[in-house]
């Protein structure tokens, strides 16, 4: 395994600053964080506390102003954009709050997207997609387009897309933020199963304490600083 000492994610003294109209806005201030393999971690905090920014840094879709983010043994700041994209494809499964499925593709095609980046044959891709859809309980919806699915179903397709390539780390940005209580509970249960049964490491951003209860560990972020 690429991680050191069982640590999958290591964030060291990370700062992130945005500029709005030339005004410096510090979002993260000296974050230190470790996530071990197989953990299910919830990251909580009020709006604007920097939760999503930290998640983006760990997922390799943004870069810190200062500090080091090491995931699966790779220091992300050292990777060139093309290698970083390949690294994301291999290691990260991203679940968005608004699902972000491609509307012109069916559920099957959406789930297949990450596999297009692999060397798998069409037959192997098909097998994997059906496995992922089966895991989220949507085998019968494979040919449906996102507009033909409910919010909960869309999020389950998004989860299938996130896990289909068997990534090292699942990151979820408010995965239940746009769902009703019933669907939210289903999604959280699904994430729990992925963690317990498939030993997936999960980092979930949420502002919902009920959602955070499903995780094994909860971290609190406020004004860009992790609370003890």
């Amino acid at each position, binding site marked *: 395994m690429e991680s050191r000492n069982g640590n999958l994610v290591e964030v060291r003294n990370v700062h992130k600053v945005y500029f709005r109209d030339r005004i410096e806005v510090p979002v993260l201030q000296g974050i230190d964080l470790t996530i071990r393999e197989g953990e299910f971690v919830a990251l909580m905090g009020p709006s604007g506390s920097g939760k*999503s*920014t930290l998640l*983006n840094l760990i*997922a390799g*879709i*943004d870069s810190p102003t200062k500090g080091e983010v090491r995931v699966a043994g790779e220091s992300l700041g050292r990777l060139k*954009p*093309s290698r970083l*994209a*390949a*690294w*994301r*494809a*291999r290691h*990260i499964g*991203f679940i*968005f*709050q*608004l699902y*972000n499925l*491609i*509307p*012109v*593709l069916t559920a099957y*095609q959406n789930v297949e*997207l*990450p596999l*297009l*980046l692999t060397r798998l044959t*069409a037959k192997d891709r098909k097998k994997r997609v059906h496995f992922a859809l089966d895991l989220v309980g949507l085998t019968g919806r494979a040919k449906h387009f996102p507009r033909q699915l409910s919010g909960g179903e869309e999020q389950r397709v998004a989860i299938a*897309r996130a896990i289909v390539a068997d990534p090292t780390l699942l990151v979820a940005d408010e995965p239940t933020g746009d769902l009703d209580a019933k669907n939210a509970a289903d999604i959280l249960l699904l994430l729990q199963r992925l963690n317990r049964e498939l030993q997936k490491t999960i980092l979930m951003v949420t502002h919902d304490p009920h959602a955070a209860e499903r995780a094994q560990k909860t971290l609190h972020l406020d004004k860009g600083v992790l609370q003890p």
Partner: protein
Amino acid sequence: MKYFRLVLANLMRAKRRTFLTVFSIAVALFLFCTLRTVITSFEASLRASQATRLVVRHAASLVFPLPLAYRERLAQVPGVTGVTYGNWFGGFYQDPKNQFAQFAMDVPTMFDLFPETVAPPDQVQAFRAERTACIIGRALAKKYGWKIGDQIPIVGTIYPGEWRFNVRGIYEGKTRDVDENTLFFHWDFLNESLPEGRRNYVGIYWLRIRSPDLAAPVSQRVDAIFENSPQPTKTETEKAFQAGFISMIGNVQLLLTIIGSAIVFAIMLVTINTMMMAARERTTEIAVLKTLGFSDGLILRLVAGEALVVSLLGGLLGCGLAALVFHETDFTAAGFFPNFRVLPATILTGLALAAVMGILSGLGPAISAAQLKIASALRKVA
């Protein structure tokens, strides 16, 4: 290939927009092929010209004829191995819009001087034997449904009255560049039908020379012979004659090239705008694809691929339509473009132009998409 489905799915997202873009490119490429074919049809007449054939006409203008008596003196010029002559008839069939070329030719010598015009020997023989006979090109026969034995009434404009010719032969060109839209009939028949004062005058003489190298000296010699006569001559190669004929309507090639380029350029700007709009609308989706691990290069190829597919579809439609329409309608622009055929080279040029349009129109949006910052793009939506 596995990404092609993604390209197609994106194009089908806004069907109306894609259709209109494809259609506008198709119209531009149709016009391009049409204008280009005007040029190639001019060029075809130049290609069909023989290097060993000279044209002798009145020095002042084609309008003025030359005496028939010149024939013997032309035949005696050193280097000349054959002489034929003819008059432009300038008539129409039934309706003034049914115009095509008609020539009154010296039948005994014309096939000798124009070996690229071929007809079965028995038909040539029948044409020679009958003074009111005519021989017509294969394309002309096809266009009007004429066959051997038909009588064709032609209304003369230069030579007034209705003239009736019996079809005794149908000729073909040895190459595709040879005009097959002309009617040839007996110069003698025309000459005898004219009033006394207009008889024994010839519009053009064609000379066959022994070698292309003799074109310049023979031309100078001929013009020198008649320099001080009441009807001085202008002698030039057939190619120069055709080029001069074309230049009578100005620098057509330049004009058509400018018009064609302007149309294609205007449509390209429209396509660039459309593709940029299409890519901008998908900012989030592009960010999502990048999050999944699609590299900048792959995103660039996908977006550029969409523009390329749209342009090539438009190109295929426009060029294909031009080839089909002008083939099926046998268009000749009232006989002005007897060889109006969309050549394979024109179609290939059109498709290459479509590809260039696709690449240029897709480049901007593709680069923007490739350079998109994921976090910023996702933040704008959230």
